[in-house]
């Protein structure tokens, strides 16, 4: 496990404990499974125009949180998504490198009414490329944590007293660049990610 990933997981665990500690009696936990779409990370022109863009990635996530009142709750979300970074030209596409994306957000959720929630989060994102062949890609140097912001909405329905199931639609934004791209003269680009996930949620808070 890389140092960056360890740092992310440690920070996530500490933040979760901090969030849950003041109200030990009321906690919520979530598991999510879904898919992430990412916008183009790089546009380039060498002989022909092409882009580098992650393919749609299956994603998994865990969240721990606590209610902040009847309408609000705060949670720490940690997500994992993995797909291939693709080089796309007008008439072809090929894999550059398998790419994992780790994200961690502190998310504030606001319950609009019984079934609908909106959410906003701040956090960080880390690209974690496969080791094999990494030297010949834009990810050849260490990948720092990148600050990110997120917005989203969710529809939730009760399964039982403490379990709910939901459909979560989220969007996040971060600045994308790498040391190799900067050395080549590329500027930071705003990258967007859109996620759609099914969420299973457990909470011991009273409805």
């Amino acid at each position, binding site marked *: 496990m890389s140092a960056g990933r360890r740092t992310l997981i440690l920070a996530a665990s500490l933040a979760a404990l901090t969030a849950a500690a003041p109200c030990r009696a009321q906690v919520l936990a979530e598991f999510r499974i879904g898919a992430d779409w990412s916008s183009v990370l790089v*546009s*380039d022109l060498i002989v022909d125009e092409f882009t580098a863009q992650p393919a749609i990635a299956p994603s998994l996530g865990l969240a721990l949180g606590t209610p902040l009142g009847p309408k609000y709750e705060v949670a720490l979300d940690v997500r994992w998504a993995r797909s291939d970074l693709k080089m796309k030209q007008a008439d072809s596409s090929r894999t550059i490198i398998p790419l994992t994306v780790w994200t961690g957000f502190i998310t504030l959720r606001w319950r609009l009414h019984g079934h609908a929630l909106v959410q906003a989060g701040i956090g960080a994102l880390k690209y974690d490329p496969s080791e094999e062949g990494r030297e010949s890609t*834009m990810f050849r140097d260490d990948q720092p944590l990148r600050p990110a912001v997120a*917005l989203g909405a969710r529809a939730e329905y009760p399964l039982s007293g403490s379990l709910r199931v939901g459909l979560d639609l989220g969007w996040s934004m971060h600045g994308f660049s790498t040391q190799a791209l900067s050395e080549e003269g*590329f500027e*930071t680009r705003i990258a967007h990610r859109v996620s759609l996930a099914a969420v299973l949620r457990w909470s011991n808070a009273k409805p």
Partner: protein
Amino acid sequence: MRSPNVVAAVLLLGALAGCQDPEVPSRAQPYEFRLSPADPVFRWPSDDLPVRFWVEPSGALPEYVTTGMVSWARQFLYGEFWGELVSDSLAADILVSYLDEAPPDAPLTDDPPQQVCTGTTTIPLPQRDVEGRLRFPEPITISVRWFSADPTDIANCLQRVVAHEIGHALGIFAHSPNAGDLMAIPVVAREPSRSDRSTAQLLYHSVSDILPYRP
């Protein structure tokens, strides 16, 4: 209804930010990578990576090849070329050896380059395969030799020359006209320059006319 307005403003800002498509940077002027503009182009196909190097296990040659291989891989952004060392010469794409014996061990230094070694990359004459495509009938070979001199000068020279010869094996068959480039003659650079980089990038985004040898 301030909250929905704030959310809408953030979304709009995000969307606008995403519409800015950063400009593609200008790159150094590439040089001609073919011996003649009429020659066919060769580069390693992306679906054949990594390129497999067999290196005579003698002296520091494997270290020089690894350094050269990695320094060329680092000229790319999109996984166009990378290589690995293999122990089976029959399964290799490129064979690297000394013409004679290994020189005495010596560390690499920053001393000025001395021309106390040479290298040769042998590119086989491509032949038509059964499907009519041009293909190399055998692996590419690199051989290096050294002359009597200070062992440190020999080590420094061999490291540079091996990296230069790997450039030929990548498909840069011509020499650079720019004296500071790794692909120039005499070899004074330790690693690819920006001009070498843009030439390699241009080559690896061109259509290859020749397929590599397949064991």
